[in-house]
């Protein structure tokens, strides 16, 4: 099956300016040589500690940040080079759900406007049936149509996140980036919102990139999982394989941090020492080597490439035979 979305050698550096001439003195290497594909109808998890570049990947795909280099092909179109006006039309097909439900809604817009304008912008439906569409969307995300004329501050975090989901789905996108959509919510509400996304995925025929900072959240909803660390991909595997037979030491460390391991899952407890290094001066060779319990001298020499080690399973570690 061909990929709906193909990312190749994506790189995003944020320049750091300084000095009296305001010249670029250094770069934050937020995303480095990231390549992966997402197949139609698939939900792919993107996992890694905070600061590993997940948000930047998601935003660069939608051109909310401009990539430093690399290509993103969506359904045959190279979107990073698309002229602004063409991109504007294309945006209907790719949407995003944000992490912070309190920051993702304009405090001065009623829900009717939040969703309604997405429809008018992309000329979806006739002016008469837009009201019905808004009602239907609200119901699909589990909100009452009575909420239409309320402002964001009248809602709870979970409700706001549902509104954000409705806004993203209003234009009937093919592909959605969900950037830690439940991280900011109460634990009691997280499962509801994940289940909602799982339902909507079927109803809207969605392909999704689901970002999370730990593996516990993605297990339920993802078909495949990409593990990222300090701007680079460490491992890609089908969700089942990743949980039962993680290859990369970083994945193993993340998994051993998941609170309730499944019965029968036997894993050495790997505890990461220290903090994630600065992306301004990432370690040479394998970026994970400074915290890796298995690191050897060679790890500093070359950046390991993603090697196929099984069906749909790739890992970037020189210790992998």
């Amino acid at each position, binding site marked *: 099956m061909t990929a709906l979305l193909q990312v190749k050698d994506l790189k995003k550096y944020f320049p750091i300016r300084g000095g009296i001439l305001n010249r670029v003195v250094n770069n934050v290497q937020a995303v480095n040589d990231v390549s992966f594909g997402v197949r139609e109808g698939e939900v792919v998890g993107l996992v890694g500690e905070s600061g590993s570049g997940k948000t930047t990947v998601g*935003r660069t795909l*939608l051109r*909310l940040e401009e990539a430093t280099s690399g290509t993103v092909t969506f359904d045959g179109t190279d979107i990073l080079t698309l002229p602004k006006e063409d*991109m*504007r*039309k294309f*945006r*209907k097909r*790719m*949407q*995003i759900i*944000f*992490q*912070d439900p309190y*920051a*993702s*809604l*304009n*405090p*001065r*817009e009623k829900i009717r406007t939040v969703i309604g*304008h*997405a429809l008018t*912008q*992309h000329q979806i439906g006739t002016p008469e049936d837009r009201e019905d569409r808004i009602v239907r969307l609200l119901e699909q995300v589990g909100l009452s149509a009575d909420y239409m004329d309320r402002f964001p501050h009248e809602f709870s975090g979970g409700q706001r996140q549902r509104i*954000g989901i409705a*806004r*993203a789905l209003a*234009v009937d996108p093919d592909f959605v980036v969900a950037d830690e959509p439940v991280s900011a919510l109460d634990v009691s509400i997280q499962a509801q919102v994940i289940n909602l996304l799982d339902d909507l995925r079927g109803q809207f025929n969605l392909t999704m990139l689901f970002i999370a900072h730990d593996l516990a959240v993605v297990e339920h909803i993802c078909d495949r999982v990409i593990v990222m660390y300090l701007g680079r991909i460490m491992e890609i595997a089908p969700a089942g394989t990743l949980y039962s037979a993680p290859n990369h030491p970083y994945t193993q460390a993340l998994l051993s941090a998941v609170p309730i391991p499944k019965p029968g899952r036997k894993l050495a407890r790997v505890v990461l020492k220290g903090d994630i290094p600065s992306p301004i001066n990432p370690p040479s060779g394998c970026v994970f080597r400074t915290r890796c319990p298995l690191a050897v001298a060679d790890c500093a020499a070359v950046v390991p490439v993603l090697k196929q080690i099984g069906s749909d399973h790739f890992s970037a570690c020189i210790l992998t035979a």
Partner: protein
Amino acid sequence: MTEAVALSLSNGPDSRKAAVWRKHTGLIVGATLLGVILLSSLFAGFISPHDPLQHDLRNTLQPPRWAHPFGTDNFGRDIFSRVLHAAKLDLMIGFLCVLFPWMLGTALGAIAGYFGGAVDTVIMRVVDTFSAFPFLVMVIGIIAILGPGLMSMYIALTLAGWSMYARLVRAEVLVVKKAEYVLAARALGYLHGRIMFRHILPNVITPTIIFAMTDIVLVILSTTSLSFLGLGVQPPMAEWGIMISEGKGFILTAWWMVTLPGLAIVLVGLALSLLGDGIAKLLRERA
């Protein structure tokens, strides 16, 4: 004893009113004072007992008394009537000379912050240039070039005042444009105009209004100072600065010519300061 009084206050039926009063004393006093001043200036034509420009050479330099509550000046003009008419002019100048810089500064600051890059650099260099001069020095310099008068004063105060607003708005826009709701708007392909007017400006405007409320006091004081120096409003129009200027030669024989217009300036300044601080407090609580 005091405690008992406080207790009975907080439990009484009026306790809510009392709490509002305690919290917003400045706002209420300022608004009332300014309201009275505004109303009397609007109805100056009805309230004032005399024509503010009418000379009466038989009644010059009269001290305050019933027929002339604020006395008369060296031409026999009624000072009370002149103070009232001047209020209308000074308040209008103050309002417009804050409105124009606010609009210019907000527009340029928002464009600089939103588009960034070369646009930002150019606009901010102009802002730097304009804010390099002390306020009054620039105002007087511009009036010196354009010649004294009301129109020159509008232009001078606008050119000298806008850069503060531009700085303020740009800084706010830089923060808000990174907000996720603005990213969401961009992800939906909204046009710059909508993002600017619906998503960014409404969320950056509050601090500029707070600043404008304090700025208006400074502007009114500048207006009267300039007119006092003969650079702004020109005689024979009734304006507080002019009246003080005309009265300064008679300060020993007719104290009311200088003192009473001066008192009007103090009252307006006080009212606007109280109101400005009160509104700032209110908006900050809301935000």
